[in-house]
């Protein structure tokens, strides 16, 4: 879904994928030049999610006239997006591509993806305003949202029960529980603070009320070091300094071991966690439960998102109408969403999709928690995001990883790292030519 690195795509496989990309690029242009409706249209689709091939196969079976070929990209995340931006000029992009929400504005401003209003039905019936805010800009729609990734708190129920703790309702409770856990066993900690995942920290900031980017007319305001974000940074810095939270990055061999061995007994994660956890902490299957993310004030159910993607149609596509049809089937129709739930463990962004019976069963890793998806649905209802993702979130994200890793390594202040992010983001936006306040 979003944790690309984990999927262990080796360099060799990547090269093969790149080779296929080149090959298919050639065949697609030669084999289908006429837009004759009786002819079969061939589309290419870039996506790195595990299980996506089955979803595509189901579409191909039901739509013999529009055949989709899935391409696994050589690099995921911004490696892919930057390649799309570069190849856009050469005209070699696939027809449809996966785009994480935070990268969509960059692809729009580089004219890599096109607006789909001409081809799509009215989405406001089936999607919440917060879901549509991720794909609509200045009144134009650029994709159909695939999934909602509300942040949640995963914890080792067995360890919490033994210590007489329950899932923390507020961040103050989280800090208290962290102290109890660490006091009971100095080798155990409630969780980690990851400098490797900018989207994770952005989600925590969203919950606290931050707005990293806002717009008025055509002018941007950047507020990465706003009061709400500084509050989040200071809170975690306190826990790290007391030794209650481990400053190690997610997805490293060390983190996997700590999650699996029980040195870490909690994880601030997101809906897609159970898709990744089997490869991280397989020995602990059935011992975890998910609870709503702790709140800043008791009773407030607001949460942020971490991850989430849409499918977008590229400007290079010769068949935008057919491509949009495929996108809408996958993320907007019952058949497509059911296939995504079953094969890619997606929690759909579509409101009727969230009520599908396929979600009644929890993911295999959470088989001990039958109401897993009910927790997700409740959290998904209370999602708060930034007003808009900036057009250069890649620069902000890279700056987060560097500035926070350095701050954690050198034990300097995390809020100073926020200032570094703010400056890097603003100066890059100005350089590219966006109108920025301040």
């Amino acid at each position, binding site marked *: 879904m979003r944790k690309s690195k984990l999927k262990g795509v080796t360099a060799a496989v990547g090269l093969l994928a790149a080779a296929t990309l080149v090959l298919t690029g050639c065949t697609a242009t030669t084999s289908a030049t006429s837009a004759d409706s009786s002819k079969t249209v061939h589309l290419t689709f870039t996506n790195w999610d595990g299980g996506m091939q089955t979803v595509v196969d189901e579409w191909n079976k039901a739509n013999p006239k529009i055949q989709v070929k899935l391409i696994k990209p050589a690099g995921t995340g911004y490696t892919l997006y930057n390649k799309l931006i570069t190849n856009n000029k050469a005209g070699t992009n696939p027809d449809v591509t996966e785009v994480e929400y935070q990268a969509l504005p960059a692809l729009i*401003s580089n004219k890599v993806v096109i607006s789909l209003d001409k081809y799509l039905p009215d989405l406001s019936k089936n999607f919440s305003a917060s879901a549509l805010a991720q794909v609509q800009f*200045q009144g134009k729609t650029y994709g159909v949202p695939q999934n909602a990734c509300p942040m949640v708190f995963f914890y080792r129920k067995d360890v919490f029960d033994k210590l007489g703790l329950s899932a923390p309702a507020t961040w103050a409770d989280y800090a208290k529980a962290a102290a109890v856990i660490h006091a009971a066993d100095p080798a155990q900690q409630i969780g980690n603070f990851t400098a490797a995942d900018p989207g994770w920290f952005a989600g925590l900031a969203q919950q606290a009320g931050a707005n990293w980017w806002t717009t008025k007319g055509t002018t941007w305001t950047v507020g990465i070091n706003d009061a709400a974000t500084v509050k989040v940074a200071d809170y975690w810095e306190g826990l790290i300094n007391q030794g209650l939270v481990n400053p190690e990055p997610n997805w490293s061999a*060390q983190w996997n071991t700590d999650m699996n061995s029980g040195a870490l007994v909690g994880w601030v994660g997101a809906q897609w966690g159970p898709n990744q956890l089997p490869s991280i902490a397989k020995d602990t299957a059935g011992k975890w439960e998910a609870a709503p993310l702790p709140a800043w004030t008791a009773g407030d159910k607001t949460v942020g998102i971490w991850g989430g993607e849409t499918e977008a149609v590229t400007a290079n596509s010769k068949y935008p109408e057919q491509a949009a049809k495929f996108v809408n089937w996958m993320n907007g129709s019952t058949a497509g969403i059911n296939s995504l739930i079953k094969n890619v463990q997606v929690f759909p962004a579509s409101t009727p999709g969230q009520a599908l019976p396929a979600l009644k069963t929890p993911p295999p890793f959470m088989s001990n928690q039958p109401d897993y998806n009910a927790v997700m649905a409740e959290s998904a209802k209370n999602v708060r995001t930034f007003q808009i993702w900036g057009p250069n979130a*890649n620069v902000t994200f890279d700056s987060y990883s560097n500035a926070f890793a*350095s701050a954690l*390594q050198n034990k300097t202040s995390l809020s100073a790292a926020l200032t570094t992010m703010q400056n890097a983001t603003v100066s890059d936006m100005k350089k590219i030519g966006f109108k920025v306040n301040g």
Partner: protein
Amino acid sequence: MAIAAPARAHTQAKVQAHRKKRGSSLPVFLVAPAVVLLLLFTIAPAIYAIDLSFLHLKISGGLLGTGTPQEVWAGFSNYIATLSDPEFWHSLGRMLIIAVIGVPATIFFATLFALSLDAKRARLVGFTRLAIFLPYAVPGVVASLLWGFLYLPATSPIGGQFINYFGSTGIFFSVTNVAVWGVVGFNMVILYTAVRSLPPDLFEAAELDGASELQIALRIKLPLIAPAITMVALFSVIGALQLFNEPTTLKPLANAITSTWVPLMRVYTQANVNNDIYGGSATSFVLIILTVGLAIVVNLIGRRIVGRESK
């Protein structure tokens, strides 16, 4: 014979002319593939990159830009941005620290192994040589992963629980270790070949004069392979400038390495993460100039040492 002579002269002239003709076209023909490849895959991209380094992308109109983004003339602004970015100099500084530890270590171990293998008393030479060379055959990424697991407390069999291999100082030694481990074998082979090609009567004469094995190694072999050592030093310095695989692979394991840790990582991040291929090109050129400069300096120092030895 008198009749035959002019005819022979004639054919000889013909053959000579023919040879001359062939002589002038054959080398061109033989060299052509290499030149074409060089032009196509090194010179042409380099010229394109120089062009890019003087451009930058401009988006205008509306919130997210109305038209297609334009490449506009940037003058020297990309170069100025690189040279005035403190992070660029920090990345160079980190690379220099690694070079200062790694280059002497590589030369020292490669020389030590080469001279030891050539010693009379050395046994199992073939096997040992292969064993020392083997790490060079392990791709840098794989080597870094292997060492990463050796360093991490959770999986470390070499004391990662007590030694912080990812500490602010430790990280330099950890990265250098992976790099040196990988290249020592290759450099050892260069030096070993140099030692083996020395005339053996020199050592026999020294032995007759009563020189010990150690004295022969240090006083005779070492000075004679000085040119080869200079070459090894040059390779090592260039290797340090090109440091990329090891820190990039170790990066996700801890907070110690950032995406701009060494200059080449900075270039990669600029071009492929921050989508600023223009700034990345400018940084590349600054690095190329520095590399060529350093190579000249190492060469000069090497020549001077060799020159002094031969006097």
